[in-house]
């Protein structure tokens, strides 16, 4: 099964690094969509079939927490696997994100960490 992934971050370099890390991790990737903030991310979800969302927290227009709430409040996406990828260091906020059903990856990250969390969330293993 190939995963369609949406990567949401206001930094083009951060998006490229995330996509490169996903490719390096050996996960079977299908289409990869990109968005520069939460609002664009929601629009991308409406227009495409997405299996997994990676989203930053601090972004202009709509941040990652707001996007996560909108995703969870939509019956179509309430069970969609979401990984928050951020420099966030506040345990309070990380627990709040987890209570909304998101996993968390701290920047900087390694392919091994991303891969193990994607596997845990989706059950999709590495391509050999």
């Amino acid at each position, binding site marked *: 099964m190939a995963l369609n992934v949406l990567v949401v971050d206001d930094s083009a370099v951060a998006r490229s690094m995330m996509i490169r890390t996903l490719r390096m991790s050996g996960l079977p990737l299908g289409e990869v969509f990109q968005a520069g903030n939460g609002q664009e991310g929601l629009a991308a979800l409406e227009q495409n079939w997405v299996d997994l969302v990676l989203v930053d927290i601090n972004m202009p227009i709509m941040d990652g927490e707001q996007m996560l709430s909108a995703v969870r409040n939509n019956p179509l996406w309430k069970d969609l696997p979401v990984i928050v990828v951020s420099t966030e*260091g506040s345990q309070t906020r990380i627990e709040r994100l987890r209570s909304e059903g998101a996993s968390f990856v701290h920047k900087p990250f390694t392919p091994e960490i991303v891969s193990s969390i994607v596997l845990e969330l989706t059950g999709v293993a590495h391509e050999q």
Partner: protein
Amino acid sequence: MSNDLQLNAVLNNVAFEVFQELAFIFPAEGERDHDPACERTTSAVIFEGAHAGGIILALPTQMLCALASNMLGLDETAPPTPEQQVDALKELANVLCGNLLPAIYGPEAEYRVHSPLILASAPADAHVGYLCRRTGAAQAANAKINLELGMVELTLCVGQPDRMAKVG
């Protein structure tokens, strides 16, 4: 060890870790003098919340190409564009700020971290003055990070949470 020295040590340690893990740039082996005449590109990240303030990260401009290449995994046949180089510096400053705040103030405090800025070419003290005016903060620490590709300067400015000036 004094508080200032402890704070500078935290800046050094976090910077070394982030440069290594994010950009594969390692500490220099020998001592190097800070060259104030070296052309630098400077990014600032403003934060508010449990504390208000910002960090200023100044890199030798000649380091930007290697920084972006390493972060993006590019090889010599496809050098990064100027836009990618600037974006890489901003992302590095963002990750540094995000890792620095819990290292100094603990994991319970919450912050809103603004998008990184690129500051116009100016002397370092002018950048510090600009950030302090904008955030109501004062310089709390300054560290010279001696890396294999050059000397990087990292400054932390911190004020009270309620003294945040309007951030545009």
